[in-house]
C-alpha cells in the first residue's frame, strides 16, 4: 500500500485527490456566488449540501492518507450507518431486537474477512451463513406472525448495506497481477464515477429531461438524464481510468458504462424503498443530501458489479 514516509505527491491517487479538492473548492465558490446573486431557489439547501460534501470527502481522504486499516474501518462504519438507517425506516417487530443485534455483528466479521483477504468466505459469509443463521435466530424468538416479512426485510438490508458495500473495501486488498498498491486508485475511481454519475444524471435530467423512465418510482428520472449520465461517465472513465487504475482505455470505458447503468438502478431501488415507506429522505445524517442511504444508494449497486468486473478481467 501507499507508504506515507515516501509521500509522492505525483502518485495518481494523490493527484486525483488534489483534483477532487480543487473541484470542491470551485463548486463551493460558485455556489456561494450564485447564492449571493440570488440565483438559487433554496440557497440554504445548496450550501448545506456542499458542506456535507466537504465532510464526506474530508473523511474519505483522511482515511486514504491514514492507510489500509483506516480505510477499511471507515467503509465498515459506513455500512453500520447505512444498516442502522435502513433498520430505522423499515418496520420490524419489537421481538426482533436481538436478531437485529446479531445482524449488526455481521459488520465486524465481514470487514475482518476483507482485512485478512479471505475471498472465499468473504463471498459466501452473508449470502449463505448469515442468511441461514439469522433465519434460525428469528425462529428461536418464537413469534410466527410476520416471520416471512421480517426475515426477508432483515436479510435484504444486510445484503445491501453490508455485503454490497464491503466490496468497496475489498478493492483495497485485491491483488492485480504483480501489483499490490492499486486498491486506492480503484476505490477512488469507483466512488468518484458513481457520485459523478448521480450528478450528471441529475444535471442532464434538469436541462434536457422530458420523457420519464419510471414515473411511479422516481418522477425526476428521465431518459435524457440517464443517457446523458451514461455517455459522460463513459467518456470520463476512459480519460481517468488508465491514469488512476491498472485498466487500459477500453476497459475503463466499459467500466464507466457498467457504473453508470448500475448506479441508476441502485438509485431507483432506494427510491422505491422510500416510496413504499412514504418518506422523502431516509434520514438527516447528511444535511442537504438526506440520509446516508440517499447518498450511497448507487454505490450499493455499482460496488459489487465494478468489483467483479475488475476481478474477472484483471485479478
Amino acid at each position: 500500500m501507499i507508504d506515507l514516509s515516501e509521500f509522492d505527491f505525483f502518485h495518481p491517487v494523490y493527484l486525483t485527490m488534489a483534483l477532487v479538492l480543487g473541484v470542491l473548492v470551485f463548486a463551493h465558490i460558485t455556489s456561494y456566488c450564485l447564492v449571493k446573486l440570488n440565483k438559487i431557489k433554496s440557497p440554504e439547501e445548496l450550501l448545506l449540501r456542499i458542506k456535507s460534501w466537504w465532510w464526506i470527502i474530508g473523511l474519505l481522504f483522511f482515511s486514504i492518507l491514514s492507510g489500509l486499516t483506516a480505510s477499511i474501518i471507515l467503509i465498515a462504519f459506513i455500512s453500520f450507518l447505512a444498516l442502522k438507517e435502513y433498520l430505522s425506516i423499515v418496520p420490524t417487530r419489537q421481538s426482533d431486537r436481538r436478531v437485529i443485534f446479531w445482524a449488526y455483528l455481521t459488520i465486524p466479521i465481514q470487514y475482518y474477512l476483507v482485512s485478512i483477504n479471505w475471498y472465499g468466505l468473504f463471498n459466501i459469509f452473508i449470502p449463505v451463513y448469515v442468511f441461514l443463521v439469522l433465519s434460525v435466530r428469528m425462529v428461536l424468538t418464537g413469534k410466527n406472525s410476520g416471520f416471512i416479512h421480517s426475515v426477508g426485510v432483515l436479510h435484504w438490508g444486510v445484503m445491501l448495506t453490508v455485503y454490497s458495500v464491503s466490496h468497496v473495501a475489498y478493492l483495497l486488498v485485491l491483488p492485480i497481477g504483480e501489483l499490490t498498491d492499486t486498491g486506492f486508485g480503484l476505490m477512488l475511481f469507483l466512488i468518484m464515477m458513481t457520485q459523478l454519475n448521480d450528478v450528471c444524471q441529475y444535471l442532464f435530467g434538469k436541462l434536457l429531461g422530458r420523457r420519464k423512465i419510471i414515473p411511479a418510482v422516481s418522477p425526476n428520472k428521465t431518459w435524457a438524464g440517464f443517457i446523458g449520465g451514461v455517455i459522460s461517465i463513459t467518456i470520463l472513465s476512459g480519460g481517468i481510468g488508465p491514469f488512476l487504475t491498472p485498466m487500459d482505455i477500453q476497459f475503463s470505458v466499459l467500466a464507466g458504462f457498467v457504473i453508470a447503468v448500475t448506479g441508476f438502478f441502485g438509485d431507483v431501488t432506494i427510491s422505491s424503498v422510500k416510496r413504499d415507506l412514504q418518506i422523502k429522505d431516509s434520514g438527516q445524517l447528511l444535511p442537504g443530501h438526506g440520509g446516508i442511504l440517499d447518498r450511497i444508494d448507487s454505490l450499493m449497486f455499482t460496488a459489487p458489479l465494478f468489483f467483479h468486473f475488475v476481478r474477472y478481467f484483471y485479478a
Partner: protein
Amino acid sequence: MHKLNRLIQLLFFAVLVKPLVLIILGLNIRNKKGLPMEGPAVIMANHNSHLDTMVLMSLFPLRKMHKVRPVAAADYFLKNRWMAWFSLKIIGIIPLERTGKADRDTLFNECHDALDKGEILVLFPEGSRGLPDQMSTLKKGVYHLIKDRDDVSAVPIVMNGLGFALPKGEGLLVPVNVDVIVGQAIDHSPNADVFIDSTTKAFTQLKEFCITKQS
C-alpha cells in the same frame, strides 16, 4: 452544582453520552430552533426508555448541561446510595414524589427553585416509561407547575425509536436512529383538562413527523 460533580458530568456527557447518542444511535431532529436554550423553561416529552433523558440532555451544548434538570421519580432513582448519588449529583435530577401522598403545594418546591434560577426542567408527563408506541394518559403535574408562572411555557417534544433501542426491562442496546420532534410551546390553559388535551393533541401531531418506524 459542585465543581467536581460538574467535571464528572461534563466527562460523562462528552465521552460517553454524546458519542453514544450521536454515533451508536443517531438523531433525526426536527425544529431544533424550538428547543428552549435559555431558562426558565419546561420541556415535556414522551417516555419509553432510560435513554430519553440522555438524548434530551445531549441536545444541549456541554456548557449548558448543568442547567438542564430532569424531574425524575424519587422512589426509583433514589432507591440505593449509588444511584441516588449519580442521579442527584451527576445527572442533576430533581426528585419528585409520585406516591400521591405529598402535599401539592410543596411537591414542586424544588422545581420552582430551579425555574427561579433560570434552569430548564425536563418532565415526562406520562409519569413512567410506557410501552413503546403507546402513549399513557398524561398526568396533570406540568399544568400545576406552570399555571401561576407567566415566565414559563412548556415545550412538547416527541421522541421515537428509543423504545426499540433500549425498552423498559432490557439491558441490550440495539442501535437505531431516533427522531426528536420539537413542537410549539403549549399556551397557558384555564384548567388542567384543557392543558392535557392540548398537550395530547400536540404529541399526536408531532408523532406524524417521525421517520423511524421502530417505536
